[in-house]
């Protein structure tokens, strides 16, 4: 799951997880950038390195580069000194010497989780869009710098996972606004061209619902008269202003979503903007229901060769 900051990537991650769990699949969410509001979407305390249950069939954990590095060292006979090496900053030197090494360790760990069949679906709440490319590029970049040894083998295995659409796909998230749409399109082409990863349908988040026809203050007064109810002039103007605002934003959003469709030939899943509350379990359930209905309506081919067991 990748997208620019502020587009609701975490919300969509939670929504996908709830959708998959609703379909009877077990889900593991992996957070790679530390702190986020993901656990709060399920009404749970923040995640840690140890897996925690977030909802029935949904588990979550963090997997930061430092954690992955310590994990790697521990499984390679350096258990005793691994933590100290991280603290002393010695690993920073090595990680700087080999850019992408931390990312490859995270992806390597994800691959290990996948091979162990840690869950039916593993969702990675990836770094913000720009960094998502470097993140997913890391195995290719490393291939050039390090040609032998375990890291090189790790890279090869991760590339294999990333380029197999039956094992891995990327879902890009945007809100229907100019800059996020542009960034999504750029990221999409880079991911396909440079990494060769399969793109799943894109998710357009926080879409306003259809506002219906335009109304004026006169219209409101006429409606009130017809129904024999009292609407104060001030209230009438608030009603009209709110309706007008929604119409304007809706029109802009449609324009941006259409522009996205024109520039990127991928199916779109549109999630509604929720007015009512902060996101918690009930809101995620609403979003999951919308998500799942739209997934059902997609043509079979939209999801590449992914087969749901």
């Amino acid at each position, binding site marked *: 799951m990748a997208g620019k*900051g502020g587009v609701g990537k975490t919300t969509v991650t939670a929504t996908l997880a709830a959708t998959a769990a609703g379909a009877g699949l077990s889900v593991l969410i992996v957070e790679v950038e530390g702190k986020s509001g993901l656990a709060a979407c399920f009404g749970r305390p923040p995640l840690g390195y140890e897996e925690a249950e977030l909802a029935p069939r949904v588990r979550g954990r963090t997997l930061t580069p430092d954690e992955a590095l310590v994990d790697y060292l521990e499984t390679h006979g350096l258990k005793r000194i691994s933590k100290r090496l991280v603290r002393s900053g010695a690993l920073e030197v090595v990680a700087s010497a080999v850019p992408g090494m931390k990312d490859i360790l995270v992806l390597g760990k994800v691959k290990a989780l996948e091979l162990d069949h840690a869950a039916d679906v593993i969702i990675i709440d990836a770094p913000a869009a720009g960094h998502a490319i470097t993140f997913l590029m890391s195995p290719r970049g490393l291939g050039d710098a390090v040609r032998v040894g375990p890291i090189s083998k790790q890279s090869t295995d991760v590339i294999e996972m990333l380029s197999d659409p039956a094992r891995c796909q990327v879902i890009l998230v945007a809100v229907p606004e100019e800059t996020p749409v*542009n960034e999504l399109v750029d990221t999409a082409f880079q991911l396909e061209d440079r990494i060769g990863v399969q793109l799943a349908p894109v998710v357009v988040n926080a879409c306003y619902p259809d506002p219906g026809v335009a109304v004026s203050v006169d219209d409101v007064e006429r409606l009130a008269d017809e129904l024999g109810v009292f609407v104060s002039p001030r209230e009438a103007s*608030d009603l009209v202003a709110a309706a007008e605002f929604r119409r304007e934003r809706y029109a802009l959003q449609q324009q941006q979503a259409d522009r996205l469709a024109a520039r990127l030939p991928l199916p779109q899943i549109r999630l509604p903007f929720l007015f009512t509350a902060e996101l918690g379990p009930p809101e995620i359930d609403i979003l999951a229901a919308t998500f799942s209905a739209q997934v059902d309506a997609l043509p079979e081919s939209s999801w590449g060769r992914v087969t749901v067991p």
Partner: protein
Amino acid sequence: MSEGVTFDDIVAGRHIVVCCGTGGVGKTTVAAVFAVEGARRGRNAVVVTIDPAKRLANTLGLEALSNAPHEIDRQRWDPAGSAPPGGRLSALMLDTKSTFDHLVATYSTDDDQTQRILSNRFYRNVSTALSGTQEYMAMEKLYELHEQGGYDLIVVDTPPTRHALDFLDAPRRLTRLLDNRIFRLLMMPTRAYLRVASAAVQRFLRTVSKVVGTEVIDDVVAFFRAFEGMEEGFRNRAASVLALLAEPSSSFVVVSSPRRDAVEEAAFFAERLAESDIPVEGLIVNRVHPAFGNEGVEGLRARAETLAAKRSEVARAAGDGAASARQLAELYTNLADFRQVAERERHHMAGVKARAGRAAVAYVPFLSRDVYDFDALAEVGRHLFTAAPAAPARAG
């Protein structure tokens, strides 16, 4: 000014303005707004942007990364010709690597040392991929523009980081890297480091060599050797940058959106800066929904329900009444929805305002279009600054 600072004070009187906050809240836009307003008030202003959206970059005349500021044609930002003559506007898009290269050239003892460092593979990684390098170079660029003089107002955008304070820590990261014990060991004559290093470090280095290859270790050793004698310069420079940021003529403005997490982050950020003796002078909450009156959400929802009930009532009586009732009920539901969003946002904003101390606070509404041209930048500016510009103040 016991009543606190205003955005007018900041744009007219400060020498440096740093815009910070998490990604996706419009930091770059706000940075541009400050620089444009500074120029309109007769100041020689420059904005350092990081990864601006394409159309904003075009507006600012930024086609590519550049190390030197590019002056924007006056006609473009002041078409009416109303700005005082001293007003100038320049922009640049930060080129992290070139800035770092320049810094190396400044502190190296000779060209040979510069070349050895610039061509080193480890250096190339550090200068592009070490986390915090971009933040560090943004601060470095700010210092450079300050030292060169000439600018009254220098506005800096900061990179979008999950952890908004990274940029303050960034200069220290490199010095930490240089202070590293491993570094000292690596500074020993060739291969001798393996003899004197402790058993643990020896094991570590052997393992690293096995994992990533000896070539990598050789690069690192070569880099640290080449860097010898320059650490002091880098350390001093980092200290000077931090000292400049702590001066009263430097101002920090936190940009946020009215969402719960963004507001939390902004308040946290302001508090952390205050702990570092760098008070936040401005807090801008961007993309706020309009309030649409002041009626209570519950009352509006109840009204919508009554109308919906009326609808079935009139439906039995036939006629167009049912459609009218439905339409009016929908209008009420819609108003209730937006009132609820507005109340929630105002609740979050009140919380952050309470924690902002004496900082100036401004709310910028959701504009009906994206901000990328000078007109839209001015529109945002109208929510921050008073309409009539005060007499320009020029920083020495």
